[in-house]
């Protein structure tokens, strides 16, 4: 047993001194994840559903005409609608007494836009004529703000025009100015209320967010990417670490070990243990780095242990078989570079954030990497440990089967 540990320790020591192995085992997955992290971070921030904060200056020159039956001018109603409680979180109004002051503030970029309400706005409205146009001047550098303001004002104006038509019909039919005035006042109150609810949505419509879509329990994009990278490089690291047996065969140190009073099965066991320890060490570093650098919540401890353990066993098993099948270390390039990459692609390790077709998901079931990804997705989704039993058992079974085949072949080769 001491000899097994001596061989494993020697191999582990050599692995930690291999810049290539450290680069591929730890640096590459973290680097790729970091690049994705920054790329996705900028995408996510620009894709945010939060509305931009809009600073809107208002120059309200509107005056109620003499004898008007309305209590407030329509300009005032419009201002009231725009300063509603729900809009207040993103639309901030600043009143200016004259156009020059508002323009100066706009030029100084203290505000994003200015809404000019003309002096005869209510008068024109009351006469039933086409109201004088509202005028909006905005910072030309802005893209979203003008669209939002335009939508808000169009809605407000359409409501007012509807009310204007209704009032004209009412006045024509009742011939009672007092009734018309009362209706106009009620309409003004309703309109203000309607405008303030514009952003919040009507009271009769409730949008319910399903629990499963709660962002706090969903794995972040970066967690999935890191999981994919960790799985891919875990299998690569296992293969590369196992390759040391071919390097040793070529360098003569394996033959020299065979001349010592050490059974060959012990020598092979030491090599296998070294691969397992290397893969565990790599995985532990990536898990810790994911937690501390990217804030990844890997899931419940039991679930993590099952996903991690299954992945380790499968990675070692595949490594042993692959290296047992190749004859020289020169053949390792196409095998590791080609086969493991192809398996990684089939398993969806590089497309963790994309919903792939059902057939593709089915293909991933034929690779240990695919099962490892399934296990990690469950763990990252916060599933209970018991939910990971199936993928963990499958990974272990695959790993042990591959290991047995590889070990048998090694034993034959070095017998």
């Amino acid at each position, binding site marked *: 047993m001491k000899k097994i540990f001596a061989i494993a320790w*020697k191999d582990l020591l050599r692995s930690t001194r291999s810049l290539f192995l450290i680069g591929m085992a730890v640096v590459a997955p973290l680097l790729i994840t970091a690049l994705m992290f920054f790329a996705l971070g900028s995408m996510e921030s620009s894709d945010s559903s939060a509305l931009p904060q809009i600073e809107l200056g208002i120059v309200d020159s509107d005056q109620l005409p003499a004898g008007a039956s309305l209590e407030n001018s329509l300009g005032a109603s419009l201002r009231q609608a725009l300063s509603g409680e729900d809009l207040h979180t993103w639309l901030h109004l600043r009143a200016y007494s004259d156009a020059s002051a508002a323009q100066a503030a706009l030029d100084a970029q203290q505000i994003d836009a200015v809404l000019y309400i003309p002096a005869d706005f209510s008068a024109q409205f009351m006469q039933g004529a086409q109201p004088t146009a509202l005028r909006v001047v905005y910072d030309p550098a802005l893209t979203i703000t003008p669209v939002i303001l335009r939508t808000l004002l169009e809605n407000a104006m359409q409501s007012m025009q509807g009310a204007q038509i209704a009032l004209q019909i009412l006045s024509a039919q009742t011939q009672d100015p007092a009734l018309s005035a009362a209706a106009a006042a009620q309409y003004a109150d309703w309109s203000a209320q309607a405008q303030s609810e514009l952003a919040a949505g009507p009271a009769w419509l409730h949008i319910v967010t399903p629990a499963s879509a709660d962002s706090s329990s969903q794995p972040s994009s970066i967690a999935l990417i890191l999981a994919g990278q960790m799985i891919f490089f875990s299998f690569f690291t296992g293969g590369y670490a196992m390759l040391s047996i071919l390097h040793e065969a070529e360098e003569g140190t394996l033959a020299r070990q065979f001349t010592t009073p050490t059974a060959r099965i012990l020598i092979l066991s030491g090599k296998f243990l070294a691969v397992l320890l290397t893969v565990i060490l790599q995985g532990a570093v990536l898990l810790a780095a994911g937690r501390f650098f990217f804030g990844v919540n890997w899931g419940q401890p039991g679930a993590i242990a099952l996903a991690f353990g299954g992945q380790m066993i499968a990675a070692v098993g595949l490594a042993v078989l692959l290296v047992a099948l190749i004859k020289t270390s020169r053949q390792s390039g196409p095998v590791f570079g080609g086969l493991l990459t192809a398996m990684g692609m089939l398993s969806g390790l590089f497309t963790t954030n994309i919903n792939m077709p059902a057939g593709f998901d089915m293909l991933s079931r034929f690779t240990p990497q695919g099962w490892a990804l399934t296990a990690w997705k469950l763990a990252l989704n916060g599933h209970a440990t018991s939910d990971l039993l199936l993928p963990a058992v499958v990974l272990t079974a695959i790993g042990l089967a591959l290991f047995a085949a590889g070990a048998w072949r090694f034993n034959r080769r070095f017998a």
Partner: protein
Amino acid sequence: MNAIETFQLKKNFGARAAVQGIDLRVPAGEIFSLLGPNGAGKSTTIAMLSGLLAPSGGDAVIFGHSIIRQTQQAKAVLGIVPQEIALYPDLSARENLRFWGQMYGLGGKTLQTRVDEILDLIDLRDRQNDLVGKFSGGMQRRVNIGAALLHRPQLLIMDEPTVGIDPQSRRHILDSVKALNQQGMTVLYTTHYMEEAAELSDQIAIMDQGQIIASGSHTQLIHLVGGQTRVEISLNGCVDGLLSAWQAMPGVSAVNAKDNQVSLLTENANTLLPLLFESTAGNGLHITAVEICEPNLEMVFLHLTGRALRD
């Protein structure tokens, strides 16, 4: 007691017989050299003795342990110095020695002490923590030998340990082999350098094409060619008219000619040379070069096989 006894030891690689049933006796406490050209079967023989290759037939016993039935016990008394450097270049000299010591079952304080002893023996104590990959070829050879000595083997097998190294390191290795032997260690040494075999060995076995073609002490082997000196002569013209006269000269046992060169075997070159010059001048020719070769293992090999040792 014999350190090694082989009984019709054979190794076939497919249809090719690399070792054709050899019977060796290596007495304990001696330096025994296997001498032969490349491909003679020396390394294959050693690979079988060290348990690296399974024999195709026969057996060998090392200090009483059969290499077939008691493989691990036989290996435990062996120290192997492979022909190529078999070390880890990315480990230090001390780390390498520790590992190989562990492979021979050493551990704890014993291992520590043995590693220190070996570092002193190979004169690398001050470089013990440097990576072996940064050592010169000679230094690597020394660590390569040291790794085989950690468990104080009864039998040290060295497979051409001086190939491709500088004269200083070569001298160091040869002196080390002698020193180890003086401490009681049996050494089986393979080489294709006859000078090394001659200098080191108590006994020498000459191998060729998988067979032992001669064995004995250096003196005994030399006597196979009659202890005669070889005289190589180059002339400025055709030698055909001289050969019968030279063959009849006193003390000459053999004459071979090729082109303008003649090779003679004689018991006394000093008395022969004046006669050769005189005879040549009488035939209107001139001797352009003379070389006198004292009897050596090269001549023995040539005598036995008709080929040079380095062919």
